[in-house]
């Protein structure tokens, strides 16, 4: 194994989602003051990379496109055991949809170079588009497998991948390089070891802007994002209330009827 790139994204901590609001003007989430965590599925991707490195050697590099505050999240990935990190951060990246983000991440992968696997989480818990992995593979002109639930290296140039499909699982052989995205069943991510916290302090986080990546400005940021938000609404969930009236016998009869209608009891 040569090098594994793991794409990681800082996302708002679900424990604080009740404090996330929406900006009706820009149709974006207002995340100010909400702490970030590493996207949970990205942790599974990182665990898979670390396990492969432990059995077959190589280097694990974290790659993220995010504002500079993402360093804290990235540092956690380094504490988990990644060797180094590359953070793609530039104002011109702001507003990128999944396609533009994939362009930028693909440029990041090319900048790092020499990789055998690019690993992603299947989707992020904030955007939940699940598009990055396949777009990234397409842009890098590499094979792509999503919904990975298992992987093991078999011989020098082969990886045996278990992929979850609608009615079961498929075992696939893949050569290198390949772009994969994992489901949570793939593993249980390790906890951050305290020794890792100390080690992470001296690990390198390389900051790159678009001056380093030279991605066509027309293909990134808002300009390069074909996804346009049509509308945004906050859904309210309330219990359905219905008042049954009449004599006690009438009410009981109506109630039983409703229970049948709801399918709680079958006729």
């Amino acid at each position, binding site marked *: 194994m040569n090098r594994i790139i793991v794409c990681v994204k800082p996302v708002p901590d679900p424990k604080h989602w009740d404090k996330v609001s929406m900006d009706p003007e820009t149709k974006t989430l207002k995340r100010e003051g909400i702490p970030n965590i590493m996207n949970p599925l990205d942790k599974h991707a990182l665990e898979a990379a670390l396990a492969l490195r432990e059995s077959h050697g190589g280097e694990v590099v974290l790659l993220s496109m995010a504002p500079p505050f993402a360093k*804290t999240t990235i540092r956690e990935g380094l*504490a988990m055991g990644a060797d180094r990190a590359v953070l793609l951060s530039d104002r011109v990246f702001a507003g990128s949809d999944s396609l533009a983000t994939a362009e930028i991440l693909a440029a990041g992968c090319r900048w790092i170079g020499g990789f055998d696997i690019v690993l992603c989480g299947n989707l992020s818990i904030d955007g939940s588009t699940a598009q990055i992995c396949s777009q990234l593979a397409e842009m890098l002109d590499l094979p792509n497998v999503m919904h990975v639930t298992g992987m093991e290296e078999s011989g020098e140039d082969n990886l045996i991948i278990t992929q979850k499909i609608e009615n079961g699982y498929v075992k696939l052989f893949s050569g290198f390089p390949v772009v994969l995205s994992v489901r949570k069943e793939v593993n249980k991510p390790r*906890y951050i070891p*305290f020794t890792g*916290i*100390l080690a992470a*302090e001296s690990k390198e986080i390389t900051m790159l802007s678009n001056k380093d990546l030279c991605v066509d400005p027309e293909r990134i940021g808002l300009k390069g994002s074909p996804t346009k938000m049509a509308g945004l609404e906050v859904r309210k969930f309330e219990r359905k209330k219905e008042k049954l009236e009449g004599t006690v016998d009438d009410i009981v009869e109506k109630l039983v009827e409703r229970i049948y209608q709801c399918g709680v009891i079958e006729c």
Partner: protein
Amino acid sequence: MEFAFTEREEMLRKAVREFAEAEIPPRMEAMEETGEFPMDLLKPMAQVGITGIITPPEYSGVGMNYVARTIVLEELGRVCAAFPMALQVHHMACAALNDFGTDEQKKKYLPALATGETLGTVGVTDPSGGSDLIGMKTTAELKGDKYILNGRKCFITNSHLSDFWIVIAKTGEGAKGLSAFIVDKDTPGAKLGRKENKFGLRGANTGEWAFDNCEVPKENLIGQEGQGLTVALKTISETGRTGMAATALGILQAVYEEAGKFANERVLYGKPISTLQAIQFLVAEIYTQLDICRLLNYRASWMKDQNMRCDTETGMAKYYTCNAAVEAAKKAIEIHGSYGIMKEYAVQRLFRDAMVTVPAGGTAEVAKTGIGRAALAPFKK
């Protein structure tokens, strides 16, 4: 003056919280029922670094400081106080060996403690009393190349879960008449006594040992003969009291969270009870107590890390935090009303756990005698 935690300390807190919130709750019901500590978590805790946090890396530890340890114990205590109780005593064994042990003893025992091969434990208290150390009855008599131990030890945390015990026994008279020993649990004459049935900190194991002509090799003496009081006092004062205080601090944090959550969820007179000033006052008092205790705890640990004398400060942190945890838990029960005494609600457990921290590791009054001495020293003529 710097009051903020470093980036390292913040990440440490996050890492422990993640571990504690995921791994501990599934085991708590059984811990409450059986009074057993979940030993299956010892290895996972070691992998994270909890067991070896203050042990130097050359003995397979992490080598972090006491502020870091306090963060770890507080976070564990926030979820279930039986964990920091067990671990702070485990750390006492690590500290006693690291501070006073020979190279051979450190090589033999410290890695086993750091990697979770066994839990550490220290037995100081005799049935005749714990605070009157010099008056203890357990004896160790040197015969040839062995010490012969006789007597009993009680109220020992992790008593039934450790492969070796650190025991303080009498080898002479007066302050220089105590010595510290490592006793392997399988040594003939070393016997496990009863397991205690406590009403709080249920999941932390507490019990007794008995020594009946127990032959301990001379090389198992920790430090010099007659140094036992120093071993005991330094370990209790610096590691034990900071540990007990951090356990109570974790309880206090949990009390605050439970009180705040319930006050916001419970609706009376058409609005959450948190809008009532009477409830706000109670929560404000809990919140203030929490902050006072947090400052006392981290100041004491910081002083230990600076190699400053800190027995007064650790005493203040221990006695004040443990009492504050009880008072705060009582207020949280008041906020909960009758729900507060139901087993389904955490506050009743927090109250029981807080009560156990008060006498554990020395009562408030014993701590206050030391604090009083320090407070009055400038006025002494």
